[in-house]
């Protein structure tokens, strides 16, 4: 379902939500005013209670069920107003937090299921280059040979003497066009940071430290593809969605906040 742009604006949501709330609260002329001692259950309230029942149960309530539902409504209304009168909503941190998260949730709901267009995603990529700064490195593929030494000194001696054969190890001697994330899983973070700054060539370089020891490396190839939109599309959509949820919460808050005069005694 594709909604027009204006329908996705949080401001619109809040106006609609506010209007709905206003209607709900004033419907039948009985706003939940804690100061009021009148609880009116007229035809419209009855209808609402019956509707709610039908929605949940898949059938209309019997007369007895409706009477019970009305009693429950009245009881809840009485206790709710008494709670407000006692100021329980203000002093109860849990209630406050719950209400806050409900407001946040209503602001972000639409974004969770929205489907961004290609245009939107391209714009998002352009606006957030920092999110994808490492995308090229993480997805670059390398080919290299390595030989292993348990001490740095031995590795240096081997490098200068040209006798590059190292010690026996289960680490592969050669890696062919493998993504850096896979290299990291096998050789660890230190090794990958070292490898990232080497220039490809035919010479043995190093030694690079790893969690295992020291490595001489012949980095034969590094293919770093510039971030390609198609391959990033899924990640972009997920990130965009998350950013949207966050922004919507913030903007919704800004809209509400602008109606207050905030006076902080600093």
């Amino acid at each position, binding site marked *: 379902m594709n909604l027009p742009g204006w329908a996705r604006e949080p401001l619109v949501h809040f106006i609609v939500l506010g209007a709905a709330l206003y209607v709900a609260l004033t419907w039948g002329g009985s706003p939940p005013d804690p100061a009021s001692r009148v609880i009116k259950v007229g035809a419209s309230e009855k209808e609402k209670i019956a509707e709610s029942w039908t929605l949940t149960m898949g059938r209309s309530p019997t007369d007895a069920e409706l009477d019970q539902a009305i009693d429950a409504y009245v009881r809840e209304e009485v206790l709710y107003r008494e709670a407000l009168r006692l100021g329980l909503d203000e002093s109860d941190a849990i209630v406050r937090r719950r209400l806050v998260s409900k407001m946040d949730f209503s602001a972000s709901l639409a974004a969770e299921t*929205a489907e961004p267009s290609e245009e939107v995603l391209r714009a998002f990529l352009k606006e957030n280059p920092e999110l994808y700064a490492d995308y090229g490195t993480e997805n670059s593929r390398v080919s290299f040979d390595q030989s292993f030494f348990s001490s740095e000194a031995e590795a240096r001696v081997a490098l200068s003497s040209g006798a590059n054969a190292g010690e026996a190890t289960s680490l592969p001697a050669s890696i062919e066009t493998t993504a850096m994330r896979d290299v990291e899983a096998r050789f660890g973070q230190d090794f990958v940071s070292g490898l990232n700054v080497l220039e490809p060539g035919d010479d043995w370089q190093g030694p690079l430290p790893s969690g295992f020891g020291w490595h001489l490396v012949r980095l034969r190839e590094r293919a770093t593809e510039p971030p390609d939109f198609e391959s990033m599309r899924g990640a972009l959509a997920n990130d965009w969605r998350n950013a949207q949820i966050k922004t919507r919460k913030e903007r919704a808050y800004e809209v509400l906040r602008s109606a207050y005069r905030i006076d902080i005694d600093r």
Partner: protein
Amino acid sequence: MVDEKYAGQEKIVRQLWKTLSVASVLAVAVAACSESEPTVSETQSGDGTDTVELAEFPDRPYWGDTHLHTDNSVDAFGFGTRLGPEEALRFARGEKVTATTGAETQLSRPLDFLVIADHSDGLGATRRLYDAPRWYVNWVMGDETVLRWYDMMHESPEQSTKAVGELISAAAEGNVPEAFADPEAAAEATKDIWNTQLSILDRYNEPGVFTALAGYEWTAMPNGNNLHRVVMFRDGSDKTRQTVPFPGISTTAPQLWEYMRAYEKETGGRVLAIPHNPNVSNGLMFQMTMEDGSPMTPEYAALRAWAEPVVEVTQIKGDSETHPYLSPNDEMAGFGVKGWELGNLPLTEKTVPSMYAGSYARSALLRGLTLEAQMGVNPYTFGMIGSTDSHTSLATGDEDNFWGKHTGNEQAYTDRANKGQNLGTREGRFGWHYLAGGYAAAWARGNTRAEIFDAFARREVYATTGPRMTVRIFGGFGFTEADLDGDWVRTGYTRGVPMGGELDDQGDAPSFLITAMKDPDGANLDRVQVIKGWLDASGQMQEQIYDVVWSDMDSRRRSGGRVPAVGDTVNRDDATYSNNIGATELRTVWTDPNYRPGQRAFYYVRVLEIPTPRWTLFDAVRFGVKLSDEAMADAVAQERAYTSPIWLQSKS
């Protein structure tokens, strides 16, 4: 369901929904939102076949967690987590998320795959209950207990945890209140959550980079004895949308296997089940009989072996490899046992030693050999993995990044190690009994749903208690040291079988190529052991631990048949250790010195790290908490890995 058998099944299912899927008022609202799910490419929504270039042989272990709960789980939500599947996936992929209790958190290294395993019973029910208006709970559901839970959930996180503890106890004891709800609407809600979940999984599933597998947890718990299974699918959402999670509370494992068979028949897909932490099953997970106590049939054994190729042997709620009572000659057997050996999950039934054999993996493997000798089929031919069973949506297995079993003991609760823990229990267990959780390693040719699942199905997987050490074993005949120096992986695959494989007895002692490398970003290794289980000439079950290679073998000479301890570099004051003891890599070729022709046997490898701080010690230092004497005595441990076994099959 097409099978006639399912007519009765459906009744049970309906009743369950009626019982557990309490408030369904929000079902309509949720359903309305999910119509416009974002679409994803076929590459992401499929099983990954033909999407990435595959290696000739599995080239590295892929790391994952098959047992993670989000806010869709009845208990996880009740315990307080407010993070959903999307945050869970982002976190597992290595991104930073904000935990429910407020702090930002991230994995130091991303995982390669994830199974979100929310409880199929009452999927989303506590969330729906929590979100329902109070009058609805009070009057429509009309159950005093449910209303009390509702109020407790809203009162405070502590009360919420308590309420869900009671709910678990009630479920364990089979008296969840018959709260009045419309089963149709609740079933609809479950289906809706499942489908929404599948869409989210597809969005984060990226062949070659990160695999999001569909799954859930089936939670049978007769009398509180834990028989849970994680159900895991190989398939894309085109197939998994054709099923819904199968409830566990009043169904049995054979019924679950029937459900799995029906799924495969209906869709052409693949599914498997993973029994998890059998340590609190009070001997029921691996019985010598059928569930009802009658003698086991070959049909039952074959079905079980097909359905459950892998067992989760280590997780937050303790370690289920073996128990010191079962393995008195195993000096490393006590890991992750304390607290969990006392009784079943809610501690309503104490464990007596005769129950241990049915609760631990090694004894189950041995029982399998006996049952095979009796009826020709081995029901317990399983591989081994670890996972977290975290209920915080955060798949953390590292000791220095433990986010707690549930939100009620996240890092915000700084004294969590010393506190009694009340997961439906009132006595006996403390925070420090929890492990930080484990991970599953899968030897696969590439990172896709199909490849990861197939590694599980052929048992080419292993368990670790968190560290990512690389462990490999090939079994065959006539392997020599020279084989290790050459292209040993090719040799292993062409002349032998990898972990999880089976060898036919050829009248010679089997030999094994074994390599273990430390976690590249973790602690050094102490030793590699081969654990052999077999039936002796009189049919008795036997086990033996062989130290086959260890660090500094020249100076650490065996004495009295034992390898001396590796040492301990842990500084108790600042939770650090030094990697100046132990080895970075251990490898050997080992031939069974006690082989007898015709013996039924299994062999698996256990790799031990040098001692390192447990999460409790990190907590003590980070939060300035003083651990109790008992907790302090347990604050340093040797983390480990368990491979799947290789079986030696007798020709008889």
